[in-house]
């Protein structure tokens, strides 16, 4: 009888634990279903005072300074990068391949930012910039404009770049 009672108690504890786990999960799911209509209430900050904008600028500086580790640190692990007709689907892919070519290229050129707009929307931000590239690379004169779009996500208080689209 005592054995049965203990067995029942154990089953009861197990079910309660599982129920609590499901309740916790259901709270997460419910949060996702809420409809966000509060866009107008949110701040839209200019680039120099925006923390996301500072991250974009620091990322640019790290690339230009040939600092692979620092530049990699600003990218989300699963970042998707469109550049020069190809796509890279992780920070490691980019850091181990095209980032090095970008660093070599930009190290030879003068880069002037013509425009840079950053908008923060809660834990998400997007950045749009236009740059002028001048100089010489591999014996060829460079005089072009570069366009950049980015999506940044704030996780654990840090902005990470989740998507980059570069074009000329």
């Amino acid at each position, binding site marked *: 009888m005592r054995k049965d009672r203990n067995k029942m108690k154990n089953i009861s504890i197990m079910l309660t634990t599982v129920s609590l786990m*499901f309740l916790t999960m259901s709270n997460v799911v419910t949060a*996702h279903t809420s409809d*966000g209509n509060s866009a107008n209430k949110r701040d839209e900050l200019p680039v120099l005072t925006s923390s996301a904008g500072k991250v974009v600028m620091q990322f640019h500086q790290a690339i230009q300074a040939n600092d692979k580790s620092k530049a990699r640190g600003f990218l989300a692990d699963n970042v998707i990068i469109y550049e020069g007709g190809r796509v890279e689907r992780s920070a490691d892919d980019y850091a181990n391949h095209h980032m090095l070519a970008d660093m070599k290229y930009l190290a030879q050129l003068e880069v002037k930012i013509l425009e840079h707009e950053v908008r923060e929307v809660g834990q998400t931000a997007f950045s749009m910039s236009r740059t002028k590239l001048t100089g010489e690379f591999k014996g060829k004169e460079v005089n072009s404009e570069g366009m950049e779009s980015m999506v940044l996500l704030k996780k654990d208080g840090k902005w990470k770049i989740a998507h980059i689209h570069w074009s000329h």
Partner: protein
Amino acid sequence: MRKFIATFIALIISISAVAHDDRDHSNKDKKAIVDVIKSIKYGWENGDGLPFRRNFLDFEGARYIEGGGQNAGLDSLVEHHVEPEKDALEYLKLSFSEIEVHFEGEDKSFAWAIADTRIKGKVNKSGKTFDKKGFQTFLFRKVNGNWKVVHTHSSSRDNK
């Protein structure tokens, strides 16, 4: 014990219903975004500015990037790019494939969509045809229950 099990089963069913509702909601939002992309395709192909005016959020600082250039503001995009193409091109065929939509933020009111693009057309004046492939980025915000485009970036190269 039976009462407890019954309560537990009821709880599981209600949780499943909430999860199902979440999936429906996400699918509904994805469909809404894909519908906006389809209307943009129609707008480009027909030189029609209306789908852009309906689905884009016009704001100070808005930028739409394409082929190394940009249009600043919705009026510039529609009046200097979309509508003039109706007269400049004999035809324009645009396709978006491999569309991926990512929802962000606690309330999922921001989304970014990416797609592979293929653009074919014929220039009236020169008679030249073009065939390009590339990538497209769309950024969206949900405003008053509707998904609005806040930024686009398109890049393409000749399809060789």
